[in-house]
């Protein structure tokens, strides 16, 4: 089995509120998986469970290890960048590199320095003197130089401008990702990651509501710009959602043959964002 992460029936309560309510999913090696869900749906809790940062109930195996009991060992092969895991203000670039090199067996200093050289970071710069974008660059440089099997990103580009965001994902794809690595990513900026994802996991109310590869998503979900005369017929096929753009009805179908839908009007593959909105509607209602 090439499953990097396999989770079964994860449960977690914070007092009376349920963060995870029986989430089950698998992540295969060599994939870039987007874990996407509304606020409070259990995304961060799932990531924390995978990283061994929170106790939970259920079965979870990450790289064959239980994050609850084998955390330190697991961290040899897992890296993470979280919006909330920020670098301390007093840390200098050169010290950060030296420290990670000192404690991490899989760290490659040359790689980190090569990446740093492409930024405006200097060895003596302290984190407190950096912009948020630069801090993320430093963190990414550290993480990219680690030959880890699994990289977990929790809102890694939150608060960055568009230049940093684009560059972040570009670096990740071009210089880091290969078939031996797996990336698990959560973000609300779906548009920016959807073209790099290979798999989607939608999470809703602590449960996985959709788990599919992007190819499967393309096959399963179809968006149709329905011509006015077919609206009733199309509605009979129970679209997931319907919206109106420039006076035309756009309907999103799940598991309806494309051939059949092509009679109603122009077809297209929905964006992840549209799919997300369609499947999560009513979340905050």
């Amino acid at each position: 089995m090439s499953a990097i992460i396999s989770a079964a029936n994860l449960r977690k309560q914070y007092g009376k509120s349920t963060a995870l309510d029986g989430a089950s999913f698998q992540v295969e090696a060599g994939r870039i998986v987007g874990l996407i869900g509304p606020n409070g749906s259990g995304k961060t809790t799932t990531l924390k469970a995978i990283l061994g940062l929170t106790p939970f109930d259920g079965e979870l195996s990450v790289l064959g290890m239980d994050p609850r009991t084998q955390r330190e060992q697991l961290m040899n092969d897992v890296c993470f960048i979280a919006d909330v895991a920020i670098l301390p203000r007093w840390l200098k670039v050169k010290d950060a590199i030296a420290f990670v090199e000192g404690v991490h067996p899989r760290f490659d200093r040359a790689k980190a320095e090569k990446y740093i050289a492409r930024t405006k970071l200097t060895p003596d710069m302290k984190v407190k003197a950096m912009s948020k974008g630069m801090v993320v660059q430093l963190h990414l440089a550290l993480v990219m130089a680690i030959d880890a099997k699994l990289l977990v990103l929790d809102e890694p580009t939150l608060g960055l401008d568009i230049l940093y965001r684009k560059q972040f994902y570009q670096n990740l794809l071009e210089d880091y990702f290969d078939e031996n690595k797996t990336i698990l990513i959560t973000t609300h900026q779906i548009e920016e990651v959807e073209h790099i994802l290979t798999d989607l996991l939608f999470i809703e109310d602590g449960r996985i509501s959709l788990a599919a590869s992007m190819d499967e998503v393309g096959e399963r979900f179809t968006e149709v710009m329905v011509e006015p005369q077919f609206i009733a017929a199309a509605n009979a096929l129970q679209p997931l959602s319907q919206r109106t753009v420039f006076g035309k009805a756009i309907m999103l179908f799940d598991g309806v043959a494309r051939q059949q839908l092509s009679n109603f009007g122009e077809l297209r593959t929905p964006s992840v964002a549209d799919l997300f909105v369609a499947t999560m509607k009513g979340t905050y209602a």
Partner: protein
Amino acid sequence: MKTMKWLIKREMWENKGMLLWTPVVISSAVATLGLVAAFIGKHGDWEVNGRNIGSVTVEGTARANIADTMAQAYMASSIPLLMVLSFLVFFYCLGALHDERRDRSLLFWKSLPVSDLTTVLSKVLMAVVVAPLITLGIAVVMSLVILAAGCMALMAHGTNMFGALLLSPDLYLTPLRMVALLPVYALWALPTVGWLLMVSSWARSKVFLWAVGTPVISALLMLWAEKGLHLGFDTAWYTANIVDRILLGVVPGSWLMFDRVHIMLEHEEHKLAIPQTIFNESWGTLAGINVWVGAAAGVAMIATAVWMRRRREEA
């Protein structure tokens, strides 16, 4: 081992200002005062062992006696520095596990393959070994500077102490004795270090209030219950054996107070050099049960801190 080395370095990077520059600045201030006193202070009014040596040249036995006193006592000028060390270690421990939670860098440190146990131990080592060694190093240099200045001032009055001092074994033994007291210090400091680290890993905010307020207020409550309600509490015992131990253990020499050692008597009876007496008595405290009970409590509290760091979830 390698990981520990980097963890210690990490602590140094973070706390350099506090653990290195504070003692440097304070020792410079003390040394400056010493120099001012030696050279600009009131001349002709120098008394050592009750003899005025301001205007006479001292030689022979008298000079040897003065040399002995100076060689034994010169580290006394580092007492302010050692008192400062207590504060440094106290506040270092208080922040050690709290700052990383407050600035949310905890998750970054946790993303590296370093166990919570190793991390917390690096902070314990920092508190009871590295920080005291840094301060001691600075203290020795400063004391020697002041001693040399004193000798030069004496020289200006016609008495040359350098030769006698350099030949005095106490000159070299005194700093060594202080370094050799480090294990005693560490053991007596453990309850305080453990308590502070535990509070540091546990309190959401206001660590100082929790660390100091809890024992002090509980002692006051007990006192009130004892005196006001005539309940059978022994507040004096509680204060001496719990409150003082978890708050004052980081004060160098605290063991002399906790174990009620009578240095002076000893000194009079056996005619030992004072630093040697202090040294012997300090190691002697390890024969009692007091220190070990405290150390065990300290280890338990450190273990709690490790557990908290591992289990505690940050919002």
